[in-house]
């Protein structure tokens, strides 16, 4: 059983659904750990269908965005698919301002997102 500190992971219809343990993904140490947890999914566990569910996430800094971009690169390098869902309006604005809403595939809810893989 993998040991994660910043995320929890479940499996539904072959899709690894990732939820964040913190509502605020801000602190530098937490972001570093978050990156390690996420990269482990791709590099060590070779998961190729990842859905990041942002339910309850209230806050996201640019450093956390950078980790998501790095994760996306790793997933693409291994021919996997990464999607996001359940992003609140405040964080959706952050994605839109930075134009990352066009870079990532973002869906409204988890069932629709899982069905789209």
């Amino acid at each position, binding site marked *: 059983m993998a040991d994660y500190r910043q995320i929890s992971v479940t499996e539904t219809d072959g899709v690894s659904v990732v939820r964040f343990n913190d509502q605020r993904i*801000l*602190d*530098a*140490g937490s972001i570093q750990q978050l990156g390690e947890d996420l990269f482990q999914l791709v590099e060590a566990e070779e998961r190729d269908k990842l859905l990041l569910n942002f339910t309850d996430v209230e*806050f996201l*800094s*640019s*450093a956390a*965005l*950078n980790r998501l*971009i790095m994760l*996306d*690169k790793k997933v693409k390098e291994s021919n996997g698919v990464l999607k996001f869902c359940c992003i609140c309006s*405040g964080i959706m604005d*952050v994605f839109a*301002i*930075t*134009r*990352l809403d066009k*870079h990532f595939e973002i869906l409204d809810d988890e069932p629709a997102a899982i069905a789209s893989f």
Partner: protein
Amino acid sequence: MANESWLWVLEERIPSVTKEGSATLDKLLTELKNQQWPDQDVFAIHLSLEEAIVNAILHGNSGDPEKQVEITFQVSETELRVEIIDEGSGFNPDALPDPTADENLEKPSGRGVMLMRHYMDHVQYSKAGNQVVMVKKRS
């Protein structure tokens, strides 16, 4: 701004440790909530100041806990004024790449300063680049 009547002022010198920065920022956020600032303003301020303080600690002072960051918050009925000074050699914010350009979307730099400029009403770096003054008008 010189004639602004400040209801609450906080001046702190903190070591370059991100948890210290978060603790100082939490004091401001608590005060803004006590003064019933709108949620969207608090979100904007929280995000912008987190970026600015982390920049000062990790980039300005290279995360060296021996170096200090000076943080000043001034809150009036209508606006928040923030000043953050680090001991670094500064940087030129205008030289940052546009993070929204296609060729830069996957690059890590420039996004924090861009978010600060979007969410705050005024963001001004000193010529040396190690001091930033920001203002947010209450909605």
